[in-house]
């Protein structure tokens, strides 16, 4: 529950006067990370911190953390169904719990809990099953009836007369939100301090290849040699893999979100519904932050279709009648890369020294510290960290899928 007593936003920290340098690329690096979003920056941080590897560049085609990292709705939770997912997301959640100290930077991690609503008999069965699976994995999870849902989130409409009445919810109290920009800046500042080159406005446009090794990357700022390449390009991973002649089962889709004007604190937790495709939390400053589903078709345009927002707002107003008077301030989209089993693809590629981290789709923000940690280990050791080993590209051939559509698809 929110314990804020100050006006919303009053306790937001001041920006520091210095964040990171803006260096020109060197001729060569031990590790070149493509993509300066949360995942790329966290990977750089843990390469230094856990493995002592500092000759690292993070190459970002736009501005640092201006992709999905700046566009997501910041929900953090670990209540996934399968053991493989529970392991990596819970590892990440534990890191979130200590991240402010690790980074020496405020990230406004607020553990206000998440309610995942159930609207049908089958939703109830699936939810209870997921709660039990979570408990077996040591993850905090409970099943709540409609009255208990209302106790945690008083503004929710639990009337039986709405189109999809609330039949209950799963609840993870340790779930929460963080301030995504601050998270990126915290990682960036730490990595910069440790000697990592964060290079903006530097698009990777191709690779130089020698047999089954990549010897360098071609960029809009010249060729850069590398020992290892780590792809953290989220929605643009297919474009990069195409340069290498490597295929992966990824499809890029626009995913939209929107915020309302600032309101006083009305919404103390996070509420998500897969069935009616809306989820809501209230940001630190007071905006209602809402997300919906992905647009059905492939897209790289960082904008989505209006009817998706229309549907999402209809669902939100039915669940939260008080929202009817809130004004929409702005909406935007990111490009997310989805896989057939709604789980990420991490690890080896056909090139010996190229590693991929992609396919987090609509839900990779919560994984930021966890994947940074495990991907750094993978790069440093040339072998996947045990937590990410199940997410290799070859699972689509062996059939060992990690089918997280129930816990991951659409909801974040």
């Amino acid at each position, binding site marked *: 529950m929110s314990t804020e007593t100050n006006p919303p936003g009053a306790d937001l920290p001041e920006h520091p006067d210095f964040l990171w340098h803006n260096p020109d690329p060197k001729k060569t690096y031990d590790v070149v990370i493509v993509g300066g979003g949360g995942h790329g920056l966290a990977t750089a941080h843990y390469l230094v911190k856990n493995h002592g590897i500092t000759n690292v560049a993070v190459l970002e085609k736009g501005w640092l953390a201006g992709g999905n990292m700046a566009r997501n709705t910041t929900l953090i939770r670990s209540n996934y169904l399968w053991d493989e997912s529970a392991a990596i997301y819970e590892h990440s959640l534990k890191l979130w719990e200590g991240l402010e100290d690790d980074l020496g930077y405020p990230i406004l991690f607020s553990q206000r809990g998440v309610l995942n609503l159930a609207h049908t008999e089958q939703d109830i069965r699936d939810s209870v099953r997921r709660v039990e699976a979570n408990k077996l994995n040591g993850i905090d999870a409970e099943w709540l009836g409609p009255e208990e849902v209302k106790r945690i989130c008083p503004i929710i409409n639990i009337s039986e007369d709405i189109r999809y009445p609330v039949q209950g919810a799963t609840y993870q109290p340790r779930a929460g939100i963080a301030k995504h920009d601050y998270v990126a800046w915290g990682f960036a500042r730490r990595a910069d301090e440790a000697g990592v080159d964060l290079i903006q406005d530097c698009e990777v446009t191709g690779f130089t290849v020698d047999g089954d090794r990549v010897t360098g990357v071609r960029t809009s700022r010249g060729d850069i040699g590398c020992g290892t390449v780590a792809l953290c390009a989220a929605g643009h991973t297919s474009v990069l893999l195409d340069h290498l002649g490597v295929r992966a*089962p990824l499809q890029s889709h626009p995913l939209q979100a929107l915020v309302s004007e600032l309101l006083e604190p009305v919404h103390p937790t996070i509420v998500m519904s897969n069935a009616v495709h809306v989820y809501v939390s209230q940001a630190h400053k007071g905006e209602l932050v809402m997300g919906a589903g992905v647009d059905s078709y492939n897209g*790289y345009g960082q904008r989505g279709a209006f009817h998706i927002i229309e549907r999402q707002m209809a669902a939100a107003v039915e669940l939260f009648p008080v929202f009817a008077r809130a004004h929409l301030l702005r909406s935007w989209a990111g490009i997310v890369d989805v896989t057939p089993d709604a789980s990420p693809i991490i690890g080896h590629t056909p090139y010996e020294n190229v590693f991929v981290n992609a396919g987090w789709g609509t839900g990779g923000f919560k994984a930021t510290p966890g994947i940074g940690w495990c991907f750094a280990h993978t790069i440093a050791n040339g072998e996947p960290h045990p937590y990410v080993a199940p997410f290799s590209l070859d699972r689509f051939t062996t059939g060992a899928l990690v089918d997280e559509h129930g816990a991951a698809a659409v909801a974040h």
Partner: protein
Amino acid sequence: MQLIHCPWCGPREEVEFHYGGQAEIAYPERPAELSDQEWAEYVFYRDNPKGAFAERWSHSAGCRRWFTAVRDTHTYRFSSTAKPRRTGVRV
């Protein structure tokens, strides 16, 4: 929201349509001879270009027929829509 040109009904609103992914994915000619990798590619792998993409759409709230469209995945502009090619298989 944009207008999509159904080859049978003409321009209709986007909400009337259903997306079907990449076009012209042919069922394997000799399924029994496929390796696991080839099966994986048939079932799970699709192109994901940033640019022109040939894809299937169904006019699900109209004539309910499938057609092929070429659309730019960056600008979202449709450059053509056409009735599906005959392949011997029912389309």
